[in-house]
């Protein structure tokens, strides 16, 4: 509830800003700060990929470096996971279902804020 209100507030702020540059560079700059950090991306088929955030484009396609694939060994949610290394991967935004970044507890608030 709190998050949604915060989100709404900053969206309104964005729309009513003077020029596109000041806010956009702010958001883009914040995403830039996430580069080289550990990112966990969930895929629609249930797999997860953990790697270093390497690149993102306007469509939301993400490139992870030194990625590790995690997948469960059974259809059911409670089951051990298998992992394997893949290296450099590209995750199209269309198949991405979630995206998390590892951070200190204090930091996570600022990350959630828009």
């Amino acid at each position, binding site marked *: *509830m*709190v998050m949604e209100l915060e989100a709404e507030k900053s969206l309104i702020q964005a729309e009513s800003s003077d020029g596109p540059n000041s806010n956009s560079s702010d958001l883009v700059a914040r995403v830039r700060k996430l580069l080289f950090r550990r990112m966990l991306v969930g895929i629609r088929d249930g797999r997860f990929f953990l790697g270093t955030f390497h690149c993102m*484009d306007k469509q939301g396609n993400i490139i992870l470096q030194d990625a590790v694939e995690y*997948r469960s060994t*059974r259809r059911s949610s409670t089951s051990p996971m298998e992992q394997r290394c893949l290296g*450099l991967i590209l995750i199209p935004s269309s198949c991405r279902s979630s995206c*998390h*970044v590892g951070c200190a507890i204090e930091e996570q608030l600022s990350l959630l804020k828009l």
Partner: protein
Amino acid sequence: MADDAAAEVFVPERTSIPSGDDSVWADVSPLLESACKDLRDGELIHGDNFNLFAAMSALEIMDPKMDSGIVCKYYSIDEAIENGAAPVPISINKTVDVQCTIDIMDHLLACEATWHKGHSLAQTVFSCIYLLRPDRTSSHALLHSYCRVIRATCKAVISVVSDARTHEEDDLFTMAYGLPLDGDGDEKCLSLLNAVEETISRQLRACKAPSSRRRVLEDMEPLQTNLDLEEGYCKALLCRLRFRKHFYHVLTSMRRPQGRGLELARKHIATCISELDCIYRSSDFLRSSACGTSEDGIENRTTASGCQPIGFDASLNCRLSAPTPPRAIKILSWKKAIEYFVKLLHDLDIICSYSLDPSLEGVLQFVVQFQKSQPDLVARAHLQLLLVQDGKLYGRDSMFTVITRAAVLPEVAKNHDVQKNEYFVQLGQLVINMLKILCTNAAWQRRKLGKMLQDWRVIYVQLEIAFRKEFGEVSSIPEDENFCVKIFQHILLWVEEQTYWIASRFLILGFELELYSPSEYCMVYWYIYVVLIKLSEKTHLKMAAKNDTGKRKGKKKRDSPKDVAREYRIPPAVLFLQCQICLAEGLTMMLAALRNEHMILQSRNPFNTEQERFIQHFELLQKACIPDHVSFHSFRESTTYARLSTLVMYNYFKDAQRIAKEAKSSFSNDPDKLAELRKIEQVAEHNSIALNVISRVGALDPTLKASFEFSHHPYFATAVVKRS
């Protein structure tokens, strides 16, 4: 407020993915989404280390061609097993169980052949769930023993191919990536197999015995429940088990050092081939007793019965064939798999029948002849390991021994201290490399042979310098030093000869690989001609030196006219080269004359000049100065004035025929050389006739054109005269 926010934080469902010490996962999707909106078209968020070209090599997730982990039917092997994908026993109905077991055996044979041909283990043999979980089959003796022997066989083949270390060119097929190749107790696979074979043999005897005796053997449980089919199934199983057993023996026998197991291997090979024949013939019975198979696509089926085998799923394993993208592969049909194994066994048999000729010349001739049948990787790897073991020929003759023998030095030379000289050591290594390369496939071989030429040239120069340094000018040298001089001289000559031999192989392989266009044949034959001239020169000198040595060692005899005549006889090896020289020269001149008189069917190449093509084809030879003082200009000089009228007067092809005929008498006990000479004669004859026809009729009939085909010989072309 902070607490509320913390409660709203999303964590991934699977908390088993660690985010690190004192850290949590924070959802950044909303942030990313908003940031994306603010990006301009084509703008990327990336760091300083980003390289677009490198980024293009990233694996795209959910693209079937790049992502081997896409979840399909089963998440894992264990899930597949839990869902009954690989039941043990396969069926409670013993007849069905036997049928299915035979199908599994057949499909595994097809998978194995596919693997040998260059696909990954994971997608072929180890697409079998039974093989992936070795312990599950222990209650099913037949399946268990069969799986064991398959694993042991695969391990043996991987060992051979890895040791040969020339498989990179044939699709890395040795990587096992964590597949269970080392089954516990697989070494005992044969004893298990024998036990099962024994049981089935008794079951076969029991079902064939007349009913009175059957009562005595009643305690023997039949293989399966349908008595009419008992004999057929027993036989079908027995030949399959026996094939596996003997094939494993072939592999282990051939690996015995110094070729000690070759004779035994031949016996096993013979048994394998006859068992394969039984396996092939069992398909009629298996197809008729199988249930629900249509006649459609029977040719592509991977089993004798035509049924789909139970317990195979290539997708479960595709993650284990990473990092290569999981290309979908087609498993060879069962019939093609049998054909593959029959050919493999024949190729292995040729290797096993090899006499282990101690002369290098013999080895080279054998390898070249063997390669003509286009053997596959497994056979070639076995040949290489037979030839080169522990840095010695057949694991017994040191390279220096081989070289001194090849350089026609007396036996004692092999013990001379000079072999410790670093250049002789290097030379030995070059010979080893050459032998290994000659066992690889044609394309790889040609490339490596071309690169090798430089090394051989360099070693020659180094040896020559060392020789000069050691002995200065050859004059008034004391007796024991004289022998060292002789060793150097002989070996230097031999190095040259061997270098030209390599060059000739390099050029000839170009024809096999179809690297030359018809408009380039003229320059290629010309180069072959100049190289062969040098080769025959060196060979002749070497043989003359041998006779020299022989004469000095022999007692002084009065030279009878017969002896003199014998002495001046050209050695057969040189004759053999000479007829090829005539053929090459004849073809060069004929092609040049035809081109000069505009009678050859050829299209102009718009891309580069003849000189450029000359340089491209012969760059490696030119760099290594093989031979010296040979260039495009010398080629042009030799061929610019070629005319048909002069060629008819001096007919190289007639010379080739004459010399070939003379050489035949010396090779009466060498069928391969005889066959080669016969082919040379045929090419010479046909070309001679063509030359006559075209020179007489060509001037009068402008529509007459000549084209060149390899109808009688793999690399000497025959002219075909036609009206265009």
